[in-house]
């Protein structure tokens, strides 16, 4: 048996692999395919038993109605965009320097701090939600987009710090020493050398933070009422309200997930490298 055959397996293993991959594709894709299909089908086709998938039932009406009638969805998307962009930008602005300091600069007890930061990311939201809710209502900041953006820092800041710290740990020490010899101080080294070579992990951290903020539901549920409602709340309410208008429900859901899915697909390699590696390396 050649080594190539040994590594890749004979016909039996190949067949099993093909079968496994096919199962995997069906398992992962089927619900998403059904999401897209449902959003494109007329109500009468959807409530047929079994659903009638004939092409003449395809329509864009669901999207037209959802976009045209549900002002809440538009506002929700706008709110989500503001919240996600705000919390991602602030998390990067504060988190990147912190991650650099924890990874490379001799901050006392840097490892302990880093692990504490990570532990906060694992906090169940409910554990802090109650006092947070009480304080924020006392301050009259309920139903405020920026309030939500700040609260989201509680998980986005740790995510950003953790992803970037993993990367910064791997930067060759020679680069920083060379910069020091060349006359750059710590801040200029960070700005001119470290950040420019960290674009992929910065991108991964940004995408990750954005997706987490865009999708967050629990804090949004307890900290917003109406004007600051984000997309997940709108979708949840929509599903409660129009739960029999399936096509429109799916159209709304699809609209809400498309931005992050596109981001995730475009930046998938960065996400995999940035986050999966970061979680393993510590």
């Amino acid at each position, binding site marked *: 048996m050649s080594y190539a055959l040994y590594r890749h397996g004979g016909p039996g293993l190949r067949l099993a692999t093909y079968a496994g991959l096919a199962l995997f594709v069906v398992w992962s894709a089927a619900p998403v395919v059904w999401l897209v299909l449902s959003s494109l089908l007329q109500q009468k086709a959807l409530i047929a038993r079994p659903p009638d998938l004939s092409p003449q039932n395809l329509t864009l009406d669901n999207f037209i109605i959802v976009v045209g009638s549900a002002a809440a969805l538009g506002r929700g998307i706008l709110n989500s965009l503001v919240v996600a962009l705000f919390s991602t930008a602030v998390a990067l602005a504060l988190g990147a320097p912190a991650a650099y300091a924890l990874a490379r600069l001799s901050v006392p007890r840097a490892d302990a701090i880093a692990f504490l930061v990570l532990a906060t990311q694992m906090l169940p939201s409910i554990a802090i939600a109650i006092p947070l809710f009480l304080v924020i209502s006392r301050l009259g900041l309920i139903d405020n987009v920026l309030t939500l953006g700040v609260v989201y820092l509680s998980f986005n800041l740790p995510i950003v710090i953790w992803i970037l710290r993993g990367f910064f740990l791997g930067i*060759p020490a*020679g*680069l920083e*020493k*060379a*910069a*020091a*010899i*060349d*006359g*750059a101080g710590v801040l*200029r080294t960070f700005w*001119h*050398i470290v950040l*420019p*070579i960290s674009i992929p992990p910065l991108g991964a951290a940004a995408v990750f933070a954005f997706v987490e903020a865009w999708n967050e539901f629990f804090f949004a549920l307890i900290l917003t009422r109406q004007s600051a409602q984000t997309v997940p709340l709108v979708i949840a309410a929509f599903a409660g309200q129009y739960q029999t208008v399936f096509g429109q429900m799916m159209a709304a859901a699809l609209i809400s997930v498309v931005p992050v899915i596109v981001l995730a697909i475009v930046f998938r390699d960065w996400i995999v490298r940035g986050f999966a590696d970061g979680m393993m390396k510590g």
Partner: protein
Amino acid sequence: MTSVPHRAEPNRSVPAIELRRVAKSFGTVQVCRDVDLAIRQGEFVTLLGPSGCGKTTTLNMVAGLEDCTDGDILLAGRRVNELSPVERDVAMVFQNYALYPHMTVAENIGFTLRMRRVPRAEIEARVAAIAASLELSHVLGRLPAQLSGGQQQRVAIGRALVREPRIFLFDEPFSNLDAALRVKMRAEVKQLHQRLGVTSLFVTHDQEEAMSISDRIAVMNRGRVEQFGTPEEIYARPATRYVASFIGSPQIELMSGVVEVRDGRPTVPLGSARLTLPEEAGVRPGQRVEVGVRPEHVRLGGESLSATVRLVQPVGPATHVVLDWDGGSLTTTLPGFSRLRPGETVTAGIDPRDVLVFDQETGLRL
């Protein structure tokens, strides 16, 4: 501080770099201790030693990249312990070069001037001049990843040169090059030094590299300087057993024994053979010593001992032959290719003047 380092006429009597009882420890681990070195203006000095001997730490302390925990560092007579690297006016070439991967060659070389707020036009002019002298003009727009190993090396040197520094530091710059390129780069650096005469401190673990490039070598071991001298002194008159065994390839052969006086001369019996020691060693009978013999000092056909050939290793210009006898084994270096075969019996001779004698306990040469 002015943008262009101003170079005063160096005072020849003041050492360019001086270390006085410098020590460095991380917690309880002592990396360097009592390092004393005085390097003259324009001298090329190498810190040589195995990994972990403290040579890179010493270099970093001179550069200002690490603080020393004790002692003083003086550059041109001025104490610089508390100064940052930029204030010390030193340039450095790093292991693997540490070129900025996102900057072009021109940006890499010019970065240090940019950090010193040199006007853009002047940066361009100086970078162009340096690039021309290093034959890098045609690659100025490329990224480091698009360069050959030799070109990267020259960019790293250009980055150091453009500053016109008083001192050059080299941190194992050739350690990841292949053998041929390493020898070529070594020659380039030596020629550069001969041309510019800038005081240089070079770190390596490669004894041959150190021998070939240096005016003087400081051999380090476990955080201390064991010997500081010219290549010839280090090779021919090693201060310690450690230095003797670190320098030279194949390694010096060390054998321990007890001194006996025969015919009025100090000797050491080794099995059936008897090695005569040099008079000036000043040993006394009964003293436990180690004797060292370098391969090129073992002559075939002498009458010091009779031995069996164990191993014949031709390397081209010479052949290394390992000989066994009942008192131990020795390596001899013969010119060209040898016709000796394993199992043959030969006799060998060693001139007493070529035998190095070390005290068994202290390791110091006698």
